[in-house]
């Protein structure tokens, strides 16, 4: 039995197709997912992300505890700012990707993926054990609503006195929105400007309704997980479970920059990651057979999908991690782990249910918004 967010009845009233995602009943789409995708690219979309986990780490040594528990240098983060980071195991393999906000000098908010946050909370509690810090999983009491797209600032400005112009990308600000206490974060997973609003469960429905009304004349549409997935894929953003798994280190995923080997002190995974970083060509992995995360654009109309083999001259040289038809490019796109030598040699194909369809390797992201 899937769990419901506080907005389930709103989604049902809007006629959403609901689907199970990581144990949560979530809106897949409300009408056409392409229309929702395009609304976010050209105006704005409204998302329910209440399935995400909110874990608070507080206390005099909260920053040091996170420095030990995660690969990032969180004690150096300014209050009001946020960082994309990861939690790894002792071998440096990725357990989850996270966004950490410093809300106050001694208060951090760790946002974890829906399927992972109970594990993340357990790991953080264990890893923070010898520090003067407290870990509290408050996911059950928080809802998360996102407004994403070029019109999102204009829409949100109608409902808050907060200084949105002064709120930078990857920053957070406690504020009142439509009369409700909220943390406004300028973050997202769509490749557009946008905001994520953390509110108490009981405020989620009236906040959603206020945002819907504020955006009604500006092209705002409710958008489901299907649009969210194609938006993040176009933006070249990894999804835990697809591009990131316990099989990879952050370096394997081309995200070695999140590993702060320059921070003081030990941290979980440091020895393994330092060894990995010392290997030649660290972002791409050692040797010609090492797998590299690349972007693929299909020449035909059939879509390379999660799990499909990448082939060259009929030989498997990699695997697709995510794929979808791209609204912005008008062609199917995919991310895939492919061996370095095959990427350099070119002539890649994807085995789409038995037929080897030609694809071209391109730089990520597939889509970058104009500023």
């Amino acid at each position, binding site marked *: 039995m899937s769990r419901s967010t506080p907005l389930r009845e709103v989604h049902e009233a809007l006629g959403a*197709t609901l689907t199970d995602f990581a144990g949560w009943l979530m809106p897949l789409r409300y009408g056409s997912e392409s229309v929702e995708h395009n609304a976010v690219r050209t105006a704005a979309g409204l998302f329910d992300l209440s399935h995400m986990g909110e874990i608070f780490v507080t206390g005099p040594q909260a920053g040091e505890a996170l420095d030990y528990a995660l690969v990032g240098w969180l004690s150096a983060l300014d209050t009001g700012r946020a960082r994309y980071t990861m939690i790894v195991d002792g071998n440096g393999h990725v357990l989850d990707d996270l966004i950490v906000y410093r809300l106050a000098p001694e208060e951090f908010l760790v946002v974890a993926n829906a399927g992972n946050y109970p594990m993340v909370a357990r790991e953080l509690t264990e890893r923070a054990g010898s520090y003067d810090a407290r870990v509290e999983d408050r996911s059950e009491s928080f809802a998360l609503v996102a407004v994403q797209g070029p019109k999102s600032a204009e829409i949100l400005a109608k409902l808050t006195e907060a200084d949105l112009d002064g709120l930078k990308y990857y920053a957070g600000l406690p504020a009142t929105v439509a009369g409700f206490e909220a943390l406004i974060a300028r973050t997202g997973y769509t490749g557009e400007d946008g905001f994520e609003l953390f509110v108490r469960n009981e405020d989620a429905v009236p906040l959603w309704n206020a945002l819907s009304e504020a955006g009604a004349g500006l092209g705002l549409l409710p958008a489901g997980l*299907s649009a969210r997935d194609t938006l993040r894929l176009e933006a070249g953003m990894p999804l835990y479970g697809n591009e990131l798994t316990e099989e990879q280190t952050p370096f394997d995923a081309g995200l070695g920059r999140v590993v702060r080997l320059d921070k003081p002190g030990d941290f979980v995974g440091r020895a393994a990651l330092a060894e990995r970083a010392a290997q030649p060509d660290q972002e791409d992995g050692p040797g010609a057979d090492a797998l590299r995360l690349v972007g693929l654009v299909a020449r035909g109309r059939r*879509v390379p999908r999660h799990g499909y083999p990448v082939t060259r001259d009929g030989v498997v040289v990699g695997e697709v991690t995510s794929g979808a038809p791209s609204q912005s490019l008008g062609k*199917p796109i995919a991310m895939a782990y492919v061996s370095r030598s095959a990427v350099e040699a070119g002539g890649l194909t994807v085995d789409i249910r038995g037929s080897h369809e030609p694809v071209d390797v391109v730089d990520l992201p597939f889509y970058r918004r104009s500023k």
Partner: protein
Amino acid sequence: MSTIPEDLSYTKEHEWVAGLDDGRTVTVGVTAYAAEQLGDVVYVQVPEVGAAVTAGDAVGEVESTKSVSDIFAPVTGEVVEVNAAVVDDPSLVNSDPYGEGWLFRVQIGEEPEDLLTSAEYTSLTTAES
């Protein structure tokens, strides 16, 4: 909610079959219920004209943003016409599944079996949703 026309026949795989009453050539498409389940259709592959198809065999596919589904031949016979318009513009499957979004026509070789009536198909979709 999707409509289920009374004058068509159906398969468990969510295809519709038209024209069984008035001759030996039938038109095949996917139902509005299936189109709604798929979401936005982005690619349609239909069998080639002249192909011999056997009821129950996978003869094509319908691909949407999130998924891909086989199209099964609802009847046995020879493909005599395919809808080039739906290959060019797969969204016709969503916008007009029983009309402009038809997929192919088959000249029937054997008497069809196991097709569902409108009422039977309605209860099938009700049970699934």
